[in-house]
């Protein structure tokens, strides 16, 4: 047997290769079990980054389904509530170039909104309650409804079903506690502003005079 192998280089090579394949396969298999990483599945990670408004503007019935779709290769720029920052975060996570928001699905709104029910107009039809994806509307049939503002994600899914149009999306007022500095404007704008200083001073002085 051994002699046959030794004399026959073809068989020797074959045996060697198969042997190597077995050894490495065993090592790899062992490593796969031993060093298995219990990481978050990618869908979970994508879902973490989505804003959870559950608004469906992406065309999927909620954030999780969209996360699933992204994991299956859908575009990452379909989420207007998340806006560019979410797209950037997704791009970083998935290691792709960050595209700009797909206008087809809506525009990014800088101002956060919450739903507000004009309560004296509410007829208590519960349609908005059924539409709310996060159970943020309180009420019962024939009773006035109201929005729990702190739980409202501003998805405006409740606006459409209202038969008496008594739901408004109102911007969340900014208070002292959540005020922050803005990023400085780019240098180019500053230069432009300095090149036409007359305009600025004129307007400022004008304000004072007015």
């Amino acid at each position: 047997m051994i002699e046959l192998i030794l004399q026959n280089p073809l068989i020797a090579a074959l045996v060697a290769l198969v042997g190597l394949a077995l050894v490495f396969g065993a090592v790899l298999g062992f490593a796969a079990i031993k060093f298995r990483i219990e990481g978050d599945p990618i869908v979970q990670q994508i879902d973490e980054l989505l804003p959870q408004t559950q608004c469906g503007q992406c065309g999927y019935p909620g954030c999780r389904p969209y996360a699933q779709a992204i994991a299956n290769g859908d575009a990452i720029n379909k989420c207007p509530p998340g806006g560019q920052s979410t797209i950037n975060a997704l791009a970083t996570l998935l290691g792709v170039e960050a595209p700009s928001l797909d206008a087809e699905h809506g525009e990014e709104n800088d101002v956060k909104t919450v739903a507000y029910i004009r309560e004296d107009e509410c007829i208590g039809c519960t349609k908005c309650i059924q539409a709310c994806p996060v159970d943020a509307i309180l009420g019962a049939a024939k009773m006035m409804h109201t929005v729990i503002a702190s739980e409202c994600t501003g998805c405006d899914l409740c606006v459409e079903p209202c038969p008496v149009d008594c739901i408004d999306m109102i911007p969340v007022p900014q208070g002292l506690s959540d005020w922050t500095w803005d990023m400085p404007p780019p240098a180019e704008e500053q230069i432009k502003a300095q090149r036409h200083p007359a305009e600025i001073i004129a307007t400022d002085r004008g304000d004072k005079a007015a």
Partner: protein
Amino acid sequence: MALLKITSPHAHTAQSTASVMRLVLLATTPGLIALTLFFGWGSLINILLAGSVAVLCEAAVMRLRKRPVMFYLGDNSALVTAVLLGLALPPLAPWWVVVVGTSFAILIAKHLYGGLGYNPFNPAMVGYVVLLISFPVQMTAWPAPLPLYAEGVSPPGFLASLQIVLGLPGAGTVDAFTAATPLDTLRQNSGLLIAQLYEQDPLFNLARWAGAGWEWVNLGFLLGGCFLLYRRVFTWHGPVAMLASLSLCAALFYDGGSSASHGSPLMHLLSGGTMLGAFFILTDPVSSATSNRGRLIFGALIGALIFIIRSWGSYPDAVAFAVLLMNFAAPLIDNYTLPRTYGHKKSRRATEKKE
């Protein structure tokens, strides 16, 4: 009244980028004077030529990028790149060498990467390396230092130099004035002890420490560097680390001055582009390491690389290659050399996730 909302601080030092760059330009003068004294008008012509090309290129790029031209020209950074390249190029190099090098430095090495502050490599050195690889003949034709000229022969005057640079008919060629540099000489030395070499070669026996003319040029740059250190334009970490590591390497391989020796530390410190590199090239903040600890490592590795390439590489001088190679490594160095922040037990890594 126009009460503007402006972020603090409301006070500011008088220092500006333009003034920092001006200081750097000013600090090159001792070196430039030494170069002109020992090697003729060539370097000055280089600088003037490179400077104007650089400014033109910069302006053109700014126009193309639709940025305010004068504002960006005002930072003098293009001029600094041009001057450093001009100082590094051999005096009396043909005009097109200077033009190609400078425009490559500004257009490719600087602006293709995003302009000032975004270039990962030192633009002047990129230009230099491109020239060295593309035009080795022109780039190794160094004129002889003044002390080496025979009695009665004088180096070309300003106009003659200009004619040579512009390649005008009737002007002589640079070859008439070239001579080997100390580092060349040392490389080609195979049989002589260092002491013998110093005795026999006029390049060394006419010099005080390292190589006729070259030692003064390097001392000039050292002086300029010290001035910048004094004015706190950069910290001591990079230059000192580089010089120390170069000296250390040279000392280790001095081999008692045998024929296989790679030269004494002093000779390495005062030859070629050592001082120019130490104080003007590797201190380029954009492409070097960020933290002080990082700069120590950055400088030390450059010093070692210079010695390695000089001794065992195929190029006699190595500042440009060493700096560019370490430019590659700067982000990596930065990652591991974050300073320890106040209130933290130890420093973190730049890529570290939440604590």
